[in-house]
Every structure is written in structure tokens, then in C-alpha cells.
């Protein structure tokens, strides 16, 4: 909701956004990999005002047993917001929005992972928002996917994600809160596998024509690719590949490094599963 008494901006006319960005410009995005020593993989993302942690535990034996799938690993993401991460204090109990986001994140992540390699296991992903300002779910997906790579879990591709949509009469990338509250706001959380442009996360709220949609999806995919570069750099930094030039075949180098990391972790992972199988259920804290 734009504040009363203020004039509503018109981006078509103004040529720049309320926070000074260009229409196709992301907010500042930084990613740190491996920030949580206890986890198999982790990442911390600051994206505009959003600040989120993501961890990956697993693959570990899925418990209780009836949740096991004999054909693949179950990817279970849990999205939560700290009580102080929103303007009004958030009730600590997960609400319907938390549950829906957990579900769509789980489903998006599943596609990016070779789940077939780990039957009967669960890959647990926890994302925690400690500050927010529009776009926390895509920030979480970006963090979770990097954490998944950090955990050395064999992946088809990273997931790159961004918000995209419409506000103040223009198609724009990465809406902030003020834009999300515009009278004509359309918000599209979008997540793709950047090497194949497969869409794994897609939601939309607000009124959009077919023509506008085509612009939105094109801009969104373009934005995801920018995010992808930042994700790759963050992973490189963690795995000390600073010497590989980004422009030529960084992707491959990254892949190679990830291969190595993967193998190590995989073995660690398998051992872990064995260990866990001995227990009936993990010790309740």
C-alpha cells in the first residue's frame, strides 16, 4: 500500500524506481557458503534487506519409516521467519504461508537433485529468515541451492531464482516491499535451472495480460542468470577456485570442483546413513 498523501510513482514516466534501481536491476546480493559448521552444507544470503540462512542435512535415513520412498530421496524444506524479521512481530508458530512456501521450495529443490541416488533417505533443508523486505522466498531458494551444492549432493544444476513482476505501470525485476504493495503490483517468484531454463518455482499474484506475462518471464529468466553468476562465485570462493577465470569455462571448473566435493561428501553421507540406521530415531533434543 503506498502511503496516503504521497503521489503514486509512474515508472514508465519516471524511468527509475523508488530505490533508484533500473527496471531490470537486482538489489545488492551477497552469498556466503559454509557458514554453519554443524551442517552438511550451508549458506548465508543478504539480498537487499533480506537476510537468510540455509542449511542442508543429509541425505539421512528418512524417519518415521513410512515417509521413506524406495525410489528416491525425499527433499524436505522448512521455511521459517524469525519473530523479529518482519515489521510486526511474527507469531512463532508456522502459519499457512510458511507451510505453502516450505512446500513449493521442497518441490523446486527436488528437481535440481539426483534424488534417485539416495532411496529411502531424506535431504532436510532448513531456511531461516532473520530480516525481510519482499522476496524472502527466492532468497531462501538461492541460499538453499547453494547449501545443497556445499553439502556435495549430486545436482542436475543449481537453482537460480528471483522475484519479477509489475509495479507502478512497468515490468520490473526483483520487487521490493514498496513495489509489492503498489496498486497494480504483480509478484512472480521464479526459480529456474539456469543451464536448461527449466522452471521449477513459479507463482503469480495480481492481474497480468498474456502480453505482459511474456515480458515478465523473459525478464525473470534474465534476472535468474545474474543470480546464477553470483551463486557460482560464492561457491568458487568457498572452494578456493579464485584462479579460474569466470569468463571462459568457470561453469566446468565449478562442476569439477563440485564433483570432488561431492565425492567426499557422498561418502561422508553414506557413512552417515549407516550410522543413523543403527538408531531407531534420532535423539530428541
Amino acid at each position: 500500500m503506498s502511503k496516503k498523501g504521497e503521489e503514486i510513482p509512474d515508472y514508465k514516466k519516471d524511468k527509475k524506481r523508488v530505490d533508484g534501481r533500473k527496471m531490470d536491476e537486482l538489489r545488492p546480493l551477497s552469498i556466503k557458503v559454509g557458514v554453519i559448521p554443524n551442517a552438511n552444507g550451508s549458506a548465508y544470503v543478504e539480498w537487499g534487506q533480506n537476510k537468510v540462512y540455509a542449511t542442508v542435512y543429509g541425505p539421512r535415513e528418512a524417519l518415521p519409516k513410512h515417509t521413506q520412498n524406495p525410489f528416491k530421496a525425499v527433499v524436505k524444506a522448512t521455511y521459517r521467519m524469525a519473530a523479529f524479521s518482519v515489521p510486526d512481530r511474527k507469531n512463532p508458530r508456522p502459519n499457512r504461508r510458511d507451510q505453502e512456501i516450505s512446500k513449493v521450495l521442497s518441490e523446486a529443490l527436488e528437481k535440481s537433485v539426483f534424488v534417485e541416488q539416495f532411496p529411502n533417505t531424506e535431504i532436510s533443508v532448513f531456511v531461516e529468515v532473520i530480516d525481510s523486505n519482499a522476496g524472502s522466498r527466492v532468497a531462501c531458494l538461492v541460499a538453499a541451492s547453494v547449501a545443497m551444492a556445499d553439502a556435495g549432493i549430486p545436482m542436475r544444476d543449481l537453482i537460480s531464482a528471483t522475484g519479477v513482476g509489475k509495479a507502478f505501470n512497468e515490468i520490473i525485476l526483483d520487487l521490493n516491499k514498496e513495489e509489492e504493495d503498489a496498486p497494480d503490483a504483480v509478484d512472480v517468484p521464479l526459480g529456474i535451472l539456469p543451464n536448461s531454463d527449466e522452471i521449477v518455482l513459479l507463482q503469480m499474484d495480481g492481474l497480468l495480460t498474456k502480453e505482459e506475462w511474456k515480458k515478465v518471464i523473459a525478464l525473470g529468466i534474465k534476472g535468474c542468470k545474474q543470480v546464477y553468476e553470483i551463486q557460482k562465485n560464492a561457491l568458487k570462493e568457498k572452494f578456493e577456485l579464485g584462479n579460474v577465470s569466470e569468463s571462459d569455462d568457470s561453469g566446468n571448473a565449478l562442476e569439477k570442483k563440485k564433483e570432488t566435493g561431492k565425492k567426499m561428501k557422498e561418502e561422508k553421507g553414506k557413512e552417515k546413513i549407516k550410522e543413523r540406521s543403527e538408531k531407531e530415531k534420532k535423539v530428541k533434543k
Partner: protein
Amino acid sequence: MRSTILEYEISKVVEMAKEGKRLDGRKADEMRKLTIETGFAGNAEGSARVRLGETEVVAGLKMLTGVPYPDSPNEGSISIGAELLPLANPDYESGPPSMVEVEIGRVVDRGIRESKAIDFSKLCIREGELSWIGFIDFYAINSDGNIFDAGAIAALLCFMQGKIPKLDEKDKIIKGEFTGKLELKRLPILTTFVKVGGTILLDPTYIEEKAAEARFSVSTTEDGFMAAMQKGIGGSFKAGEIDEMIEKAFEVGKGVRAKISKL
């Protein structure tokens, strides 16, 4: 774990879908028979029973008063929730809303809310003090897939009937007396597809949902807008596939709208 029989049926559905065929003989882009019935619930301010093939959903509207949200003091609101009754399918269980129920309820809610079909400012009674909240609850009675679209149509039908109760001088609802009706500016129709064996199927059955790689729902309006989208389940779509489904959804929406607007 899933039983062997279910696994067998799923693999059959996948095989058929690869050739564009379906277990019930429908074409990939064919919808099941839609039947609707309204006004059965004497205690509700609107009610509907919707059948989509063997899927049956009942919905009802209760209009309650509440205090407007501080940031929209001159608006009322709506709230839509889905319940998959254990009555409707041997796989369903009692208990607090599952994630599946939460997602269905929220997608149906957004499909209507975001279309701006209902002018929330007309639900205001006294600015900052009192406004109407339209509660829709819908229930799966027999579940053979696509509760999304059946529920969305049932919810919309309830709002179309929506009577606004009369209040006494103490703001208490007077039972059985009404001051008017809700007005809908648009009739948004939710349309759901799944991708099975690489083929897009409209209006999936329960077994097709089990066999699906990915799901996509989009709400379309008569004036050329999409109001909500949701991709679901662990697979992916290409942008071109999304475009195709949008195209088809507008067509389906037109047909459904023609049917329900006759009421």
C-alpha cells in the same frame, strides 16, 4: 510407501500419456463433465456442490463481521480454506490442515482475491471499526483429482450467491434477514494441468496426479487477465509449455464461465 497395485497403475498412466492417451478415454486437453448445484445449505449465505467427473466438492459461505486491518481501514476481506475429508478418499487422514490442504486453499483464495473480482471496499461497514469477512470453506466429498478447480468453481459460486446479512443496532447479525448481495466484477476460473510422461493433461484425475511430474494452475478472467499462477510438484516446465497452458486455460475458463453464469 505405495502399494504395488498403485505403482502399476501409475506406470500405465505414464505409458498412455506418452501417447497422448488417458485411462478414462479423454483427450489430453479434455475436461471431465462439470455439474453444479447451489443453495443447498440453509445456514450458509451461499453454498454450492460441484462435480468434476467423480470428484465432488461442497462449499459454503459464512459472512462474519470483524475489525478491518489497520493498513486498510475501509476494506473487508475474504478467507478461503480447503479440507480434504477422510470421507472422500482412503488416503486422507483427519488432523490439522496438511500442506496439501493449505496449498489448495491458498491457490483457490488467490485465484479469486487477486482477480479483484470482489471490491473489498464494499465490505466495509464503518471505517476502521467494522467490516465483513466472507469465509468460504470447501470440502472434498469424493476425491478423484483436481480439487483445485472443483473447489475454485464452488467457491466462486458461493460468492455469486453471497447474501449480506442485516445487522441490529448492536452490530449483531439478524438471522435470515439480508441487506443485499455481494457483487462480482469478474468471474475468475482456475484451470489446472499436470505433466505426465512429458504430456500436458488438463483436469487430472487422482491417479494422474499421482503419476504427475509437475502441476500448473492458472486463474483467468473474461477480460483477458491472469490473476494467479502456481507451479506444483517436484518437476519443471519450459516457458513454452506455460504459454500453451495459459492459452488453453483461457478457453476452458470461457466454457466454465458460460455454464456458471447462467445460474
